[in-house]
């Protein structure tokens, strides 16, 4: 069943339809939040649960101007920012532990990427994740992060430059 049908059913308070929507989108929302929390699984899952609960409460307000996933990313990002504001300045975010470290170069490259991502600002990390790993267009990503398109593009460019520097750009 596609998102629009499930959303229509969830708007009429169909818990099963919302559960199906949550199952469909949970991995990507948790992935985005895991990156933003720098690999802190517990914090990411707490924020993801808050995101879906807020979505359940406010699903009647979803007008379909963007895709459902973009709407969820928007809630997730604003939840993350709210959490970041509440967090004390000396309270650290997670320290990326990476997935089970194996000797495979792809895994090592991913861990390197996550550690480099952890050094970016939240908007840069979110912009890069949405535009590349989650495959959103720049317009959709700008909508999800609630920022003008130009600002999003400059976050993407700045983030890329920083990553290249951190990961070792020979040029």
């Amino acid at each position, binding site marked *: 069943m596609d998102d629009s049908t499930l959303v229509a059913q969830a708007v009429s308070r169909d818990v099963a339809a919302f*559960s199906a929507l949550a199952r469909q989108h*949970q991995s990507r929302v*948790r*992935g985005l939040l895991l990156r933003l929390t720098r690999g802190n699984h517990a914090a990411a899952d707490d924020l993801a649960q808050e995101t879906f609960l807020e979505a359940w409460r406010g699903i009647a307000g979803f007008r379909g101007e963007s895709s459902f996933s973009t709407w969820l990313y928007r809630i997730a990002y604003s939840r993350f920012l709210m959490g970041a504001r509440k967090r004390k300045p000396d309270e650290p975010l997670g320290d990326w532990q990476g997935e089970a470290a194996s000797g495979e170069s792809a895994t090592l490259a991913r861990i390197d990427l996550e550690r480099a991502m952890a050094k970016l600002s939240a908007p840069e990390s979110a912009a890069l994740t949405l535009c*590349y790993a989650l495959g959103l267009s720049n317009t959709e990503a700008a909508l999800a992060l609630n920022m003008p398109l130009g600002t999003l593009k400059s976050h993407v460019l700045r983030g*890329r430059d920083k990553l290249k520097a951190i990961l070792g750009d020979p040029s």
Partner: protein
Amino acid sequence: MNDSELDTLLCQPLPERDAGEFSVALMEAVARHQARPARILSWLMVAVLFVVVAAASVFGALAASHGAFGPQSLVVPAALTLLTLLLSFAVLQSARE
């Protein structure tokens, strides 16, 4: 690292996360959220019930001290008892929800 290598790395999909435990916890949270109005209502009704029972006790005590027991004096206790029964039923219903 050049641009295309960085693009390849960035475009890797995020690791797939298992829905199992997360979905169960989420649906429990949704159920708790849905039960909230009924819970609040049942607590309100319990409070009203308490007030009604207290009023009935006071009325009973006053009537006993004045020795005024007649058919007319039964109207108020009967009304209070009926109200108590109705509220008990309502509390029971919302507790079931």
